[in-house]
């Protein structure tokens, strides 16, 4: 099973990718890429089982959210189905001091940061727009405008350097998540410029799920995305995004390189969005069923399950218990989502300015007066 030179799996796209676990659940001990970097993982059985639990849990929570949306309990949902390995692997690769800048789809990363999975549900339910403390969770707010967060991450990373928090193994590193579509945005390319020039301790983690809503990858690039980094003077690595081990190994190495002062890395996680873009989308309009089928064979969870089974690291009882506990979490999540209160209307005037504003105060007061005028009437 050992394969010191293997980079291209049978299922790899042209140009290859780093894969440490095949779709059939076979381990590749380590992979050495063209630039001489060797990637491997060294997990205990406990840790392997932990990753499996993560994957199953984030998929189950995601399915619950999809169901909640269908039942009218969420305004919209952006599912991570199919991208669990990319997210869990990279999320687990973060060290506690690291900072993450997500898009709107990184529920799996969020979970690995030990954040209560309910945190983003206010946004999708429409009761708020996120509303958490980026620094407390070391996980920035969900960002909807495509690509903008890559600049925020880069600026934050410049601040890490200015604070003297790089150059040692316990330094800090920053990861920015974005999609294949985002790579076309000017702002993302400016982030590449900045990160290169300031040697920022950054990992750019691109989940290439093959689509930007309906548009296939070819609408964004004519070469593999990981090669974009070369144009800006830092390394780009493609990984099998459905392989949680590769995702962990390469992200960990890139983060450690960043925290050690070696500057940015671009990781392209080659994966697939198994579901719709969001609950508002109808993917049958733009892609064929057989494509989806072919990706099912590369499922991130079944390959890890196969591995755990073959290696006798886990048994049916374990798998059943994981499913059950994921289900419990999901049902708990459901209950708590249903219990989320609608905000009081006048809270919309909160938090417009840190120092407040007489204008906003006056409008809030008029709003209150106006509503008071209806009191007792049928309104």
């Amino acid at each position, binding site marked *: 099973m050992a394969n010191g030179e293997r980079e291209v799996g049978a299922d790899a796209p042209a140009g290859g990718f780093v894969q440490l676990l095949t779709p059939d659940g076979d381990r590749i001990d380590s992979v050495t890429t063209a630039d001489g970097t060797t990637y491997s993982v060294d997990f205990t059985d406990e840790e392997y089982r932990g990753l499996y639990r993560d994957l199953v849990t984030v998929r189950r929570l995601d399915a619950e959210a999809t169901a909640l949306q269908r039942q009218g309990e969420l305004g*919209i949902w952006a599912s991570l189905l199919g991208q669990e390995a990319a997210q869990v692997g990279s999320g687990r690769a973060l060290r506690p001091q690291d900072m993450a800048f997500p898009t709107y789809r990184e529920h799996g990363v969020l979970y690995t940061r030990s954040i209560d999975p309910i945190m983003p549900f206010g946004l999708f339910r*429409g009761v708020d727009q996120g509303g958490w403390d980026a620094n407390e969770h070391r996980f920035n707010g969900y960002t909807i405008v*495509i690509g903008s967060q890559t600049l925020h991450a880069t600026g934050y990373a410049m601040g890490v350097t200015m604070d003297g928090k790089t150059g040692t193994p316990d330094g800090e590193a920053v990861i920015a998540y974005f999609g294949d579509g985002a790579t*076309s945005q000017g702002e993302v390319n400016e982030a590449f410029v900045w990160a290169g020039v300031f040697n920022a301790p950054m990992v750019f983690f691109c989940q290439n799920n093959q689509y930007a809503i309906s548009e296939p990858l070819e*609408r964004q690039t004519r070469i593999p995305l990981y090669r974009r980094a070369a144009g800006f003077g830092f390394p780009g690595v493609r990984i099998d995004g459905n392989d949680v081990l590769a995702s962990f190994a390469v992200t960990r190495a890139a983060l450690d390189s960043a925290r050690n002062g070696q500057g940015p890395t671009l990781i392209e996680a080659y994966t697939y969005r198994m579901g719709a873009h969001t609950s508002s989308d109808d993917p049958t309009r733009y892609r064929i069923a057989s494509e989806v089928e072919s990706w099912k064979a590369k499922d991130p969870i079944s390959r890890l399950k196969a591995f755990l089974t073959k290696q006798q690291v886990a048994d049916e009882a374990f798998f059943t218990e994981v499913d059950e506990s994921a289900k419990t979490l999901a049902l708990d999540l459901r209950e708590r989502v249903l219990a989320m209160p609608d905000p009081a209307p006048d809270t919309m005037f909160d938090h417009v300015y840190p120092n407040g504003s007489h204008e*906003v105060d006056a409008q809030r007061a008029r709003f209150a007066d106006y509503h008071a005028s209806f009191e007792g009437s049928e309104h």
Partner: protein
Amino acid sequence: MAELNRGGNPQQNRGETITLGKALNHGLRRSLEQDSKVVIMGEDVGKLGGVFRITDGLLKDFGDDRVIDTPLAEAGIIGTAVGLAIRGYRPVCEIQFDGFVFPAYNQIVAQVAKMFYRSKGNVRLPIVIRIPFGGGIGAVEHHSESPEAYFAHTPGLKVVTCSNPADAYAMIQQAITSDDPIVFFEPKRRYWEKGEVDLDADLSGAFPLHSARVTREGTDATLLAYGPMVRTALDAASAAAEDGRNLEVIDLRSLSPVDYDTIYASVRKTGRAIVVHEAPGNIGLGAELAARVTEHCFYNLEAPVLRVTGYDIPYPAARVEEDYLPDLDRVLDAVDRSFGW
């Protein structure tokens, strides 16, 4: 391309009852048919037919040289449209949602708006920038904004919006035919509202693109609205009628330039004006309308021009948007305040 040309049957010019979204789709189709230089470009406008299906079926019928799924970058969409226009094309660009036009703002404000001026009239950019705008659809952040003032304040751009299917059908074609660069706002929450549209009507007889329309005649006060708020204003006028107040409703249609003659004539008659829009009030269209009406109808006004607008806060979370958006009650409240002045 000719396969869907509807020129064949002149007798068949009864109206069809279709949604505003479908009317736009028909209008785009007809523009593509009538001028081979018209091209549609944007994110997901091709195979998907746009997230609101406004370009549904057009890729199939006109091919990917005419209906272009672009990379995900709004500055790129508008910037390449500028180049295509210099080359002689007439690009119709779709911005997917109001809140995503800002990456293209530099191209729109510094290039699209200014190239005709800069070139002393030598370079025309007959570009239409379609933007679904406004709230009321329960969406997440950036999907419900009303950024029209940013464009209407910019010399060199013309800005229009439609409020009903018939106007949608005619105005999109007029905008595409016009040599002016036009920002075309589409009232996204009205996409599904139906109305009668004469699909065979010819543009030559259409109501002028930059004219306001008196949508309901009245004598007691003038409601000035546009896009999604026209329906709200009409509903308010109906409700007011029950209380014996006879409100005139004007659909501005063109936000830059505004057809002030129609407005002044109305306010001189009614003596009162209330502007309704979703955008934040501060330095919005309503401010300009109020200032102009006051200057030009100073001695006719019984009360100051009042404004019913979004608040000066970021667009709030969906669950409170109904409290943010002007509605029938807030309009009537303003009418009351006007009468009580």
